[in-house]
């Protein structure tokens, strides 16, 4: 790990620690949801960073298709995997929140369904990469798959605005107690730093794997 990595790690630990303490101890309970609302201080930052990570993946995929440089493919591989990790965590957190508030662990509400589709599509991208042996074909086909999978991401974002069903729409910032907004924003930034760090580290893993693929076999 270099200095930038260490700075990102330190900043994310400090911010996430402070934001979580604020969210669990300092922020008041919600008028209707009570203490269960504290899940929002980890759920919303995870959701925003998952979608941001898939946006990185989309940009890297387009760059990979246009330039054919392996560096963009490594970054895309990293961003897809980290985005999917956050997407799965987002789904689990949402399910835990749904049980006490909606009375069910899961509902085929448009927001939940579009998130599930998003996760499955990016699982498909990772699966596709594992099926293609040739590195340049793998980069090309998985870039196309990433661009196609990304089409669903804006749909996830807009789903609560277009279809008013079980999942509540975002609240206007002016109607929220500042003591509740503070941990949300601190955790958004803290998780952003952690996400960038994870993508950087995972990119190096991808680069090392590609180098190992291209290395000549050892002589007996």
């Amino acid at each position, binding site marked *: 790990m270099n200095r930038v990595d260490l700075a990102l790690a330190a900043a994310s630990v400090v911010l996430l620690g402070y934001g979580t303490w604020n969210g*669990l101890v300092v922020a008041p309970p919600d008028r209707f949801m009570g203490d269960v609302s504290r899940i929002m201080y980890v759920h919303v930052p995870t959701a925003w960073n998952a979608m941001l990570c898939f946006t990185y993946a989309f940009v890297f995929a387009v760059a990979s298709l246009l330039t054919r440089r392996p560096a963009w493919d490594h970054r895309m591989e990293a961003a897809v995997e980290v985005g999917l990790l956050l997407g799965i*965590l987002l789904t*689990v957190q949402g399910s*835990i929140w749904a*049980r006490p508030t909606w009375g069910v662990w899961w509902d085929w509400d448009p927001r939940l369904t579009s998130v599930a589709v998003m996760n499955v599509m990016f699982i498909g991208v990772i699966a596709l990469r594992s099926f293609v042996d040739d590195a340049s074909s793998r980069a090309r086909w998985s870039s196309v798959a990433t661009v196609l999978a990304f089409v669903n991401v804006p749909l996830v974002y807009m789903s609560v605005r277009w279809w008013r069903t079980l999942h509540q729409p975002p609240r206007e910032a002016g109607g929220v107690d500042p003591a509740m907004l503070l941990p949300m924003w601190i955790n958004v930034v803290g998780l952003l730093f952690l996400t960038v760090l994870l993508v950087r580290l995972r990119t190096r893993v991808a680069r090392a794997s590609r180098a190992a693929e291209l290395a000549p076999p050892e002589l007996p």
Partner: protein
Amino acid sequence: MSGVIQGGWGYVAGAYGITAGVLLLYVVWLYTRLRTSGRSP
């Protein structure tokens, strides 16, 4: 207050615990992969 959900700290602990645990495991996995990648065949 009527209508407010009572308790719920178990759900809060579950959401935060799973998130922290999974992210920590992923960091350890990445670090291990980076440490061993130089020695991969």
